[in-house]
């Protein structure tokens, strides 16, 4: 299994998509962080309900904004699965490893660390920018263990998004359908659904499961339950993807 995971990681590394998505995600992350830092403490910031960064909790919120990387992770993870069909490399993959569960498992285990790394980068960038910002402003950046934990939480969010997306990609096969479907679900369907029925939010595969690993929200489950929900969603998606993949021709 290790060499199959290495093969999947090499497939990602040997094209430039990951680099473009990481760069795009970090730019978006940076723009958001700089905007918050620039507006915090100003009249415009107050109107936009942006609090000045004065305490650990404010820094945590800044770090959690790095979860914007999860959008880019969704695209990358879905592409890890669907590119095999878009470019016809699935045949080579299954010729080398006829056991489809092994291929799917290796994709899953490769997607998780990639997503985690994206999340860590996305969570760490706000700290770097804030550090530079406070240095220029001759202020002291609030920092402590909870801020680092928040970075890890963004990593967990992105790892989960990667795991779920790679399974959905395998199940759908079509790159366009998978990416649009996942983004549409996460960015449109879920927010729309729980704006209508608040109690649905805690069950939502993206906001609900990931949510407890971000800003506190009374509508969501606790972290342990959310972690269980994440595992259940990934396990279900993996099983459905495998069930479909075993029944379909390449």
């Amino acid at each position, binding site marked *: 299994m290790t060499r199959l995971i290495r093969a999947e990681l090499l*497939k990602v590394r*040997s094209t430039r998509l990951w680099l473009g998505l990481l760069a795009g995600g970090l730019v978006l992350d940076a723009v958001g962080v700089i905007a918050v830092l620039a507006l915090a403490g100003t009249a415009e910031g107050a109107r936009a309900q942006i609090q000045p960064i004065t305490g650990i909790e404010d820094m945590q919120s800044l770090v959690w904004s790095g979860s914007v990387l999860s959008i880019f992770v969704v695209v990358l993870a879905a592409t890890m699965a669907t*590119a095999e069909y878009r*470019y*016809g490399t699935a*045949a080579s993959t299954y010729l080398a490893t*006829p056991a489809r569960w092994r291929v799917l498992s290796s994709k899953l285990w490769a997607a998780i660390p990639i997503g985690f790394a994206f999340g860590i980068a996305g969570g760490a960038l706000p700290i770097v920018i804030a550090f530079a910002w406070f240095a220029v402003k001759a202020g002291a950046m609030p920092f402590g263990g909870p801020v680092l934990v928040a970075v890890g939480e963004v990593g967990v969010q992105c790892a989960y998004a990667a795991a779920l997306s790679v399974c959905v990609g395998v199940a759908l096969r079509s790159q366009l359908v998978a990416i649009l479907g996942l983004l549409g679900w996460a960015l449109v369907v879920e927010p729309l659904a729980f704006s209508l029925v608040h109690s649905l939010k805690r069950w939502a595969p993206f906001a609900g499961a990931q949510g407890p690993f971000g800003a506190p929200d009374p509508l969501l489950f606790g972290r342990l339950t959310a972690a269980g929900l994440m595992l259940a969603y990934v396990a279900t998606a993996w099983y459905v993807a495998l069930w479909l993949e075993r029944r379909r*021709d390449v």
Partner: protein
Amino acid sequence: MDPNAPAIEARGLSKHYGPVAAVQDLSFTVPRGSVTGFLGPNGAGKTTTMRVLLGLASPTAGETMVLGVPYGRLDAPLRRVGAALEITGFHPGRTAHDHLRVTCLEGDLATDRIDTVLTMTGMSEFAGAKVRGFSFGMRQRLALATALLGEPQVLVLDEPANGLDPAGVAWLRDFLRRYAKDGGAVLISSHILSEVAEVADRVVVIDRGRLLTQGSVSELTAAAGEHVVVRSPSAPALREALERADAEVAEQPDGSLAVLGLPVERVGEIAAAEGIVLHELHRQASTLEQAFFALTADPGGPPVRPDVEGST
């Protein structure tokens, strides 16, 4: 694995796509140490058969064996079977070398074979180039390089000469001959029948998913019989005279006439009786192409051309 089992065996293989039967009750074998041509008109079911054989599609009925076991149960399949299929693709943003590295990792193969297969297929200088810039022929060479990575005992090649330049075709022909001589088995589908005739020992001919025949090339061409080749400066008049004698006459690309249904002596007598000068007159055994047409021609439809892309 059974060491005495044929390299490839299909038993009662059927593959249906909804109401369409792509392959029907197909049985054939590919012995070890041979090159077997897999022939059939477009849509005959060749590629579908190969996909089922390699575990990429599941059969509706029947079974296929490679070295005595289903492909999915082969231990280290890339060391046993190398395949280059039409459906196999490459990521355009990946270099040839990286594509082969990925395959090595997936197939548990040593990466030191990469340079060897790139050299064998004439792709060394393009190792670091991205596939998106490759011509069809270069992709075909890369597909062959991929198939050869594991030094397999069996090769399954779907139209491998497509897009290759003459030097590439000659290399492929020589390589396959040497490979079979060394004990390897090759199943090769191609619509370039002259190429198959030059390299294959045996052929399996299918049409509409069903087996038409299998055997050695010489058996197939012998079964198709022989014809008379006659060349004359008065070809139209000669043709008319031969057709009056109930012969089937076809004009060859070089201007000579191929005559079926009359012995060579009778053709000469008719020409003499008509006072027609002949420049050439001899018997000729049927070629693989003629045998193929004889087997696959549809009397109710236009002749099937084997030189058109898009076989299934």
